[in-house]
C-alpha cells in the first residue's frame, strides 16, 4: 500500500497559501491573510472519496525567520549529503522554541514525506529576500512545485518563473481567485507529477472531482425546478369577514404573497450556495421587486429575453406539442391539423395572458362561504407568464456565478440585471418544452410527470445558460 500523497503549501506570509488551499479544498472558511505573529498551526485538508483519502493538502504558517534557520542549517551541515538530516535536526532542536514554531510547523510535514508547494505572489517583483526560504526547502530534498499566485494587479510572472526554476522541479501559474475549474484539475494533475506513485491517486481524485461537479449541476437544477414550482403555485389565503374591506385584504394578501416569493428565492440562493460549499458568501442582489411594476416592465422583459414575440413563439410550440397528441390519436389522419390548431391556440393564449396579466401578478379569488361567517379569500397563484422566466433567469445567473466562483474569492457576489438574452441559446424544441413546463408546473409533490418535465426543461435551460455565459466570458 502506497503512502497517502501529501502536499505542504508553504511560502512567505501573505502570499496566498491559504487562498490556494481554500480553492483546492473548496473551503471558503479557511482564513485568508491570517495575521503573521499570531500562533498558528498547520491545518490538514484531506480529499477523501467515501471515506478513503486520496490526497491531503496541508496549509502551513509562513516563514518567519528564514535567514536564521538557514544560518543554523549552514552552521550544522558538513556536506550536501547531510542536508535533509540537518533540517530534521533543526526541527528536533527547535520544536519547543516559540521563535521557530512556524518554521517547525511547516517543515515537519515535509520531513514526514509531503511534497512541497511553494507559493509566491506574481503580482510583486521578484526579490532575492525569499531565496533563504527556497534554499531551506531545497535542503529538505523533497519533490517540489512552485506556484505563482497573483494577488494584485502587477505582472512579474516571467521574472518569478526564471528565479523559481532554479529551485523547483515544476513551476506553475495559478490564480487562486479566478482560475477556472479545469485549471484546478490540471494543477492537481501537476501535483501527481511530483512522484510516480502519486500520479494514480491524483488522477483518480480529478475524476471524482469532475463527477462531483456534474452531480452538483444536476442537483442545482433540481433545486431551481423545486423553487420554481413553489413560486409559481404559491397561494396566500385568509378569511374575508362579511363586513371587511375587500381591497384592503387584497392589498395585504398581495404583500404577504410577494414577501413569501422573496423568501423562497433567498432560500434557493442559500441552497445553491450550500451545495457548492460557499458558506460565507456575501451576496449583492436586487430583490424581486414589484414596486412600480419593475419586474414586469418592458425593460425587464428585454433584460431577460422574454418578449411578446418570444412568448407567442414559445406558446405556439407548446400548443403544437399538445395538438400533436391529437394527431397521434387520429393516427395521422388529421394531417397535422391538431398541431396547427394547438399551436395557434397556444400562441393566442400566451399573447392574451401576457397582455392581460402583464404588470399584474395574481388576482384575489373569493371561495365558498365559511362556517361562522365570511368567505375564504385566496391570492395567487401567479398568472403572468413572464414571472417564471424572470425567476429562472435570475436563478441561473446566481447558479452560474456560484458554480464558477473559487472558494478563495472574498469579493461580494454581485448579481445585476444586465442584458440576459440567454434564451436565444435554447434550441427551439427546448424553448417550447420550457414554456409548457412553466405554464403547467407540477400541481402537487406527487405530480411526477410534470415534475419531471419541469426538471428536464430547467436542466436544458441550465445547459443553454452555461453555454451562453461561457461564450460571453470567452468573448470578454
Amino acid at each position, binding site marked *: 500500500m502506497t503512502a497517502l500523497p501529501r502536499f505542504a503549501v508553504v511560502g512567505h506570509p501573505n502570499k496566498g497559501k491559504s487562498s490556494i488551499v481554500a480553492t483546492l479544498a473548496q473551503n471558503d472558511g479557511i482564513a485568508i491573510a491570517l495575521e503573521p505573529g499570531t500562533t498558528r498551526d498547520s491545518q490538514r485538508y484531506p480529499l477523501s472519496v467515501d*471515506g478513503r483519502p486520496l490526497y491531503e493538502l496541508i496549509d502551513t504558517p509562513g516563514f*518567519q525567520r528564514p535567514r536564521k534557520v538557514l544560518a543554523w542549517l549552514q552552521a550544522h551541515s558538513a556536506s550536501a549529503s547531510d542536508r535533509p538530516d540537518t533540517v530534521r535536526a533543526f526541527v528536533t532542536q527547535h520544536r519547543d522554541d516559540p*521563535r521557530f514554531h512556524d518554521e517547525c510547523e511547516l517543515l515537519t510535514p515535509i520531513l514526514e514525506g509531503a511534497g512541497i508547494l511553494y507559493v509566491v505572489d506574481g503580482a510583486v517583483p521578484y526579490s532575492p*529576500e525569499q*531565496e533563504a526560504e527556497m534554499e531551506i526547502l531545497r535542503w529538505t530534498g523533497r519533490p517540489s512545485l512552485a506556484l505563482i499566485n497573483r494577488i494584485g494587479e502587477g505582472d512579474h510572472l516571467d521574472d518569478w518563473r526564471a528565479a523559481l526554476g532554479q529551485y523547483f522541479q515544476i513551476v506553475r501559474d495559478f490564480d487562486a481567485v479566478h482560475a477556472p475549474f479545469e485549471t484546478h484539475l490540471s494543477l492537481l494533475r501537476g501535483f501527481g507529477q511530483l512522484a510516480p506513485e502519486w500520479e494514480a491517486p491524483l488522477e483518480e481524485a480529478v475524476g471524482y472531482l469532475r463527477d462531483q461537479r456534474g452531480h452538483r449541476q444536476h442537483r442545482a437544477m433540481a433545486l431551481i425546478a423545486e423553487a420554481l414550482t413553489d413560486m409559481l403555485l404559491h397561494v396566500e389565503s385568509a378569511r374575508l369577514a362579511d363586513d371587511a374591506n375587500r381591497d384592503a385584504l387584497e392589498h395585504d394578501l398581495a404583500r404577504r404573497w410577494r414577501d413569501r416569493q422573496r423568501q423562497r428565492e433567498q432560500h434557493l440562493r442559500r441552497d445553491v450556495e*450550500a451545495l457548492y460549499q460557499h458558506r460565507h458568501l456575501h451576496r449583492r442582489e436586487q430583490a424581486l421587486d414589484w414596486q412600480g411594476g419593475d419586474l414586469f416592465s418592458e425593460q425587464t422583459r428585454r433584460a431577460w429575453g422574454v418578449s411578446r414575440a418570444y412568448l407567442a413563439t414559445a406558446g405556439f410550440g407548446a400548443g403544437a406539442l399538445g395538438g400533436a397528441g391529437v394527431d397521434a390519436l387520429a393516427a395521422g389522419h388529421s394531417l397535422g391539423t391538431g398541431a396547427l390548431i394547438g399551436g395557434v391556440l397556444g400562441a393566442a393564449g400566451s399573447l392574451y395572458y401576457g397582455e392581460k396579466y402583464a404588470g399584474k401578478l395574481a388576482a384575489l379569488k373569493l371561495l365558498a362561504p365559511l362556517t361562522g361567517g365570511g368567505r375564504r379569500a385566496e391570492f395567487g397563484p401567479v398568472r403572468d407568464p413572464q414571472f417564471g422566466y424572470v425567476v429562472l433567469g435570475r436563478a441561473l445567473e446566481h447558479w452560474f456565478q456560484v458554480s464558477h466562483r473559487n472558494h478563495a474569492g472574498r469579493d461580494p457576489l454581485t448579481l445585476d440585471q444586465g442584458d440576459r438574452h440567454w434564451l436565444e441559446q435554447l434550441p427551439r424544441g427546448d424553448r417550447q418544452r420550457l414554456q409548457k413546463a412553466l405554464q403547467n408546473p407540477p400541481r402537487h409533490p406527487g405530480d411526477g410527470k410534470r415534475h419531471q418535465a419541469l426538471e428536464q426543461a430547467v436542466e436544458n435551460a441550465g445547459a443553454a445558460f452555461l453555454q451562453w455565459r461561457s461564450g460571453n466570458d470567452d468573448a470578454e
Partner: protein
Amino acid sequence: MSRSPLPLLLDFDAQYQRDRDQTPAFLHRRDRRLALAREEAGAEPPSVAEWLHAVNAGHHDPAPLRRWRRATLAFTGAGAVLGVLTMLGLLYVTGPARINVTLFVALALLQLLLALATAGQALAGWRPWGGLFDRDRHGAPVLRQLQPQLAARAAQAGGLAFALTALATLLAQVLVRDLAFGWSTTLQTSAPAYQQLMDALAWPWRAWLPAAVPGPELVAQSRYFRLEGGTPADPALLGGWWPFLTLLWLCYVVLPRLALLALSRWHLNRRARRLLRDHPGYAALRERFATPWVDSGADEPPGPAPARVEDTPAPPPPDHAGTLIRWAGADHPALPQRPDRVLDAGGSASLEQDRDALNRADPERPVWLLVRAWEPPTGDLADFLDDARAHWGPDTVIALLPLTGDDPAALAPWRRFAARREDPALRLCAPPAPVSEEARP
C-alpha cells in the same frame, strides 16, 4: 423490512421536509455511508423503509393519519348502526302484513350503485367534498393527493359495516319472526315477468343453490295488491323468499362492498407507492446512495478573526530623526525630513548586515524604521526590534513607518503588531504620504 406504503410515504415526506434544513453535504455523507455499509454486506442500497429506520430510528408519527383513522371508525360505526336500523325499518315499515320484495331489491341495488359510485370517484380522483378537508391547512400536504382514496376506503368500510349488520338483522328477524314477503308494483307486469327478473338477479347462485331462487308458484302467489287486503292462499309459502333475499343481499351488497373495500385499499397503497416513487426527494435519495461522497474537509469551522484594535489616527513621525532603516527593501525616495544616515536591514540583507545597522544607528535620536505595509510583520522584524531595544536601550524612540501604498486597510496588522510589542518607545506613525509608483512594486 416491509411497511405499508401509506405510513412509509408520510414518514418519507416528513423526513424530506426535515432534511430541507440540512446541508447537501451532510445529507450526501449520511446517505452514502448507509449505502456503502449495505454494499459491504453484499446487499443492495437500502429500501426507503430501511433508510427511514436508519436515519429516524424507526420513529413513526401517527398524527397525519389520525384524522382519517377516526373518519374510518366513524363511518364504520355509523354504517353498523344504520344497517340495523335500515333493515328493521324495511322489515317493519310495510307493517305486519307483507314485506315488499321489490323495495328490498331496490335497496340492495341502490347499495350496489353507491358502492360502485364511491369506487369510481376514487379511481377518477374526484373529490367533490374536498372543501371539507381543505380547511385543514396543517395536515401533511402529501395526504391531500390521497384524499379520494382515503375517503373511498372510509366509505367502503362504512358501507360494509352497514351491509353486514343489515344482513345479521335480516337473519335474526328470520329466526325470531315469521316474515311474510310479497311483491307489489304499480307497473303493469305479470308474475312470469317478475319471476324472470328474480331469476336473472339470482344468477350468481342459481346454479349451485336452486332452492334460493323463487319459483313461478311463489312469485304468482306472493303478489298482492294494497286494496285487496286479502290473505294469501298459503301463508307459509310467503316466508320462502328469505333465502333469495339473504343471498341477494350477500351477493349484491356485502360481497361487492368487501371487494371494493379491498380494491380501495389496494388503490390507496398503489397510489401511495406511486407518490413515493415520484416524490422529489426519492430521486435525490437514490442519487445520494449511488454517488461517491467526495469530502474535501470543508465542514471545518473557519479560522478565528483577528482581534480588533482601536482605529485611531496614527501620529506623524517624530522630528529630528537621526537614522532611517529600510527594512526588507522598503524605500520612499520622496520622504520629507529624510534622516541623513540611511541603513538597510531585513529581507535579503544578511544577519551580519542587521547587526551592523544596529551598531551604526544613532540611538540618541529617534530612529525611523521604514517597512512595507503590504508585507505583514514577520518574526525577523520582531527579532530585529528586540535586538535594537537591547542594543540601544529602552528610551530610543523607534518610529515604525509602514508604507501603505494604495491600501489603508493594510495598516491593521501593523497596529496589532505594535500593540503586541508592549514597547512604550515604539510608535506606529502615519506614513509620510501615499507611496509613489516606484516605491510600490
